């Protein structure tokens, strides 16, 4: 019934769904899980505050990936944090420049920023420049971001989402203009660039925790708690796999390959 080779994946997936539902239900009933302090997310308010004090804009990039690709979850995490940042810029009357590379992210980002400004009672402050589509070509987009940062000298540059080779250019250009840089991605190959060049880096799952951390929404907090169960299970699978393979027993390997 289940496609060959995907049976174990399905079991893991189904287990995670059950745990997610259980932890979200518990969180809704008031058993909110504790989430450790995440410096990168904590620094967002400080970064927007700094840009406000300096009278400079906040520059935001929610990744470069379309919302209907395998990197969509990262784009959505970036958009969730954009909602929070837009709420802050609306509250403090700070200029916001959101750079968009994926055409189908443009209307979503526009709507998120619009909702944040409406919620803050600042609908009249909305401008098309707040969410700018630059280019869907990698280096044309990077060049446009560099130009904006060099012209506008943002006080804060926040980049959360899926990035590729342009990572280093964007974050280093932001650092050179004197911005506080907060970056996040779960692409393992790009994380070192962010770690080397950014002031704060959201590594892997930290960016997915952003929405829960910033909004304190019980459903989202519950789902973060469920991830810990998944990590324990994943670690156990790795350990059992390592022990059985070291002992020359392939039965566990064959089981997870099913």
């Amino acid at each position, binding site marked *: 019934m289940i496609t060959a080779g995907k049976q174990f994946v399905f079991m893991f997936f189904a287990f995670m769904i059950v745990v997610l539902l259980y932890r979200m239900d518990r969180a809704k009933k008031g058993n909110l899980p504790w989430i450790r302090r995440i410096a990168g997310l904590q620094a967002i308010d400080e970064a927007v505050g700094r840009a406000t004090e300096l009278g400079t804009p906040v520059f935001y990039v929610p990744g470069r990936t379309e919302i209907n690709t395998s990197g969509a979850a990262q784009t*959505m995490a970036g958009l969730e944090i954009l909602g929070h940042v837009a709420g802050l810029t609306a509250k403090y009357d700070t200029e916001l420049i959101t750079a968009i590379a994926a055409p189908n992210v443009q209307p979503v980002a526009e709507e998120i920023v619009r909702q944040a400004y409406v919620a803050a009672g600042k609908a009249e402050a909305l401008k*098309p420049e707040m969410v700018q589509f630059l280019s869907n070509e990698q*280096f044309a987009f990077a060049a446009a971001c560099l130009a904006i940062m060099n012209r506008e000298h943002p006080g804060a540059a926040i980049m959360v989402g899926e990035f590729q080779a342009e990572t280093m250019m964007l974050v*280093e250009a932001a*650092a050179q203009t004197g911005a506080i840089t907060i970056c996040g991605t779960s692409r393992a190959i790009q994380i070192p660039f962010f770690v080397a060049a950014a002031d704060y880096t959201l590594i892997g799952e930290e960016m997915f925790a952003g929405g829960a951390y910033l909004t304190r929404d019980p459903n989202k907090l519950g789902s973060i708690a469920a*991830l810990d169960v998944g*990590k324990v299970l994943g670690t156990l699978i790795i350990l059992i796999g390592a022990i059985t393979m070291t002992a020359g027993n392939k039965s566990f390997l064959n089981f997870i390959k099913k």
Partner: protein
Amino acid sequence: MRKEIPLAIAFVTGFVVLLEYFFLPAVPASKAWATMLQQWGIVVSGFAMFVAATNLVLVNVKKMDPKRNKEWYNPVLLLVFMFGMAFIGLFVGERTATYQFLFTKMYQPLGTAMFALMVFFIASAAQRAFRAKSVEAALLLAAGIIVMLGRAPVGELAGSWLPNLTNWIMNFPNVAGNRAIMMGAALGATATAFRALVGIDRSYLGVD
């Protein structure tokens, strides 16, 4: 209805794609459904390009005023080339010498030049990052020096221990760290996707 219809579309689309991924032998028709939905996604993305291009024109037309913008010629150039490329591509043809000239002699070298600039950004970032200001930064610095020397031909002059140490750093601490990040990221992506699928997370609709 403004929220319910997009949520229903997201749920049905996600459900069909999952059905095709896990239960293709049981529901063979799911492959055709999933392919159709993916094609619809491409069409919708095509329309999104119009929305994005409209934003690009609106933002740049405002910047073309020489009284308000000293660099007014940049948006003019952008729009001339944008509409010029679109016109030539649509009405003259992508295989024509004009289009090929613009693409291979202008667009591609510009992209390559941007990519080449990366080396300066890397050097500048490395100069800031590789300062042993803390234990973590010192470890990063030490690992960076060992891996760079071990990967370069000159590293072998110091003996085989340097390439071996480089390989050990790359194959053990590096892989362990990467796998931990990948596991956390994969679970985070699963949770985000599930929340979106069942309509708990509506941030992609601009509402929460």
